């Protein structure tokens, strides 16, 4: 077997000072002060002083990462937000350069993230196929030969000569995906964490990934969904704070990932550098799990209610914001999703939230969850507008079932929920 990707001591350093030096134009005073200092900033920028000053504020997104991927291998990459997964993929697809270290890649790297890049709403479907193909590095002859296949796959034959701005969003996405799917790269990179689109689309991505792997091509797969990682990959690497901390058979790697750094005693605190700059103006502070007495806990009793708490700061007013959580099992199956403005009256009351410090909390009722380990993810978004912040694995906790229904029998019960149901037993004969 030959090596498809060889990564040697790869490091990437980002400057983080930039986001903090940005001026806030909240008050007229800020604007005036800013204007007065403009010549000073210009002088600094021209003489390069600003650059040097920023040098203390660096963060290593990747640090001395080395690994090889064999041809035809499907490798999973797991890690928390900010562990360096996306940076690694960006370097592999040459979007950004490493600070140190080298990578040798045998073959063309394609990514399902690129769907629709370079699509222009005024161009027709046909024109966009050629345009997008060229952007992805296809030769015109190559696009010619696959054109019919792409059109058939996208199911938009009738509208192929209509400007794509008249397409429904589904048609648009299908066409974009069809082009990316026919690129036939030797190495395919799938970053599910960043993938756009609905569940159907994500399913299509995974399907395509499976096909590519079957054809014996190399695949790198990033996901927060452990069941997808387990299903689709045989081997995985675990990244933590920019370093590769583990490589092994997927089952082992996933267990290692889930058990390390997850049990943070019922509390997850986000440091400033862990929050991506594009989360602004939303700034997560902490997520906590509390018992009835208000103590932070990492093991909760199934028969007691438990409080989920999100603490955050808004640096600017936001309208339509919803802060909520995903509850999922450790195998990646979702149990439920809930947002703080799900209730219509709540939504009306908090339609626009002013800048400030907030806590959104809710109570999970007693007799809800079955025995096991669960994870809580955070999502802060404005529906249809933007997702400000997401961390699918913010917090992990255990559920203890002592006293729950059915515990008189020492047997594991199937399913993630364990409600206390009101059984009636009636003798009919």
């Amino acid at each position: 077997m030959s090596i498809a990707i060889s990564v040697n001591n790869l490091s990437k350093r980002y400057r983080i000072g930039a986001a903090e030096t940005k001026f806030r134009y909240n008050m007229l005073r800020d604007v005036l002060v800013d204007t007065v200092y403009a010549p000073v900033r210009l002088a600094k920028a021209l003489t390069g002083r600003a650059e040097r000053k920023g040098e203390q504020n660096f963060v290593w997104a990747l640090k001395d990462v080395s690994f090889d991927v064999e041809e035809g291998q499907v490798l999973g990459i797991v890690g928390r937000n900010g562990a360096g997964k996306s940076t690694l993929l960006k370097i592999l697809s040459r979007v950004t350069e490493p600070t140190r270290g080298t990578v040798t890649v045998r073959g063309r790297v394609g990514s399902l993230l690129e769907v629709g890049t370079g699509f222009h709403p005024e161009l027709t479907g046909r024109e966009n196929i050629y345009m997008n193909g060229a952007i992805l590095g296809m030769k015109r002859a190559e696009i010619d030969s696959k054109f019919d296949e792409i059109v058939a796959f996208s199911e938009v034959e009738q509208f192929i000569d209509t400007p794509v701005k008249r397409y429904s969003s589904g048609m648009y996405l299908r066409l974009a995906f069809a082009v990316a799917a026919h690129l036939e790269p030797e190495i395919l990179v799938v970053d599910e964490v960043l993938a756009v689109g609905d569940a159907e689309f994500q399913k299509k991505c995974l399907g395509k990934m499976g096909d590519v792997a079957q054809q014996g091509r190399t695949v790198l797969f990033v996901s927060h969904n452990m069941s997808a990682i387990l299903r689709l990959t045989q081997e995985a690497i675990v990244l933590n704070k920019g370093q590769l901390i583990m490589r092994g058979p997927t089952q082992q790697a996933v267990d290692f990932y889930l058990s390390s750094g997850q049990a943070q005693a019922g509390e997850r605190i986000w440091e400033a550098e862990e929050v991506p700059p594009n989360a602004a103006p939303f700034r997560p502070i902490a997520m906590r799990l509390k018992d009835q007495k208000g103590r932070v806990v990492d093991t909760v009793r199934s028969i007691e209610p438990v409080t989920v708490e999100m603490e955050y700061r808004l640096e600017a007013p936001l309208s339509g914001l919803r802060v909520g959580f995903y509850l999922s099992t450790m195998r990646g199956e979702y149990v439920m999703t809930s947002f703080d403005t799900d209730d219509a009256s709540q939504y009306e009351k908090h339609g626009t939230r002013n800048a400030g410090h907030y806590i959104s909390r809710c109570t999970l009722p007693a007799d809800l969850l079955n025995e096991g380990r669960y994870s809580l993810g955070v999502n802060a978004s404005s529906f249809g507008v933007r997702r400000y912040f997401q961390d699918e694995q913010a917090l992990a906790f255990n559920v203890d079932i002592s006293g729950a229904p059915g515990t008189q029998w020492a047997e594991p019960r199937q399913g993630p929920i364990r409600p206390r149901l009101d059984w009636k037993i009636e003798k009919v004969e």
Partner: protein
Amino acid sequence: MEIHEPTIIYIKPTTGLAALNLRDLWIYRELVFFMVWRDVKVRYKQTLLGMAWAVIQPVMTMLVFTFLFDKVAKLPTEGIPYPVFSFTALLPWGLFVTALNQGSRSLVAHNNMVTKIYFPRLILPMSSVFAGLVDFAIAFVILIGLMLYYHVTPAWNVLWTLPLFLLLAVITALGVALWLSAINVQYRDVNHALPFLTQFWLFLTPVAYSASIISEKWRIVYSLNPMAGVVNGFRWALLGSGNGPDLSLWVSVTIAVLILISGLFYFRSMEKTFADTI
């Protein structure tokens, strides 16, 4: 499915002014074509007058100039009818301004491409500049009409001198666009400075007036502006006005080439951080 030997790509930090990576530019040459084609195709979509805008802009400017500088100010034009005189200059000037405006904004305008996929970033400012050539060609038809109307016949050598001066205009525009587009990635001040810059530059270029009004001792300093060389060259090649190639032209050429080469290196040195800072 055809089987071909996969290409091997080495990814490493590029240091210094090392490779301009012209090889990749060559591999992606079709993308330049597609970007230009898209630019041209899209630019006048959903407009009533369409491609006519490529003509309307310089013609209207020419009419205003004719009124102001010919009828009112009575500027000297070395015996050439003022409409032809100014239109000859407005053509390369229009090319330059379009290239500058589109080129300087090209990286930021395509930031979704820059942050998602690899391709030689040079393609973006380059194709913006080339797309301006299409407008130039359309407006050129009007110039031919004007020249026929005013009975101005160029010398035969126009066939090779004009393309060379056009090349000089493209070199200048590309060089400046490379500098500004790369700076624009980090400092959006460029967006605000552009209208001012182009206006200022117009005064420094003999578009509305004749370069002959510049006194002899300032000629060399004046031609540090490569566009002065371009405009004078266009007038000389098409209308036979002025002295033709002399020392001041070579000053313009040298500056233009310096801007382009320094622009290429500056662009390349900033290219590696585009995706991170844009």
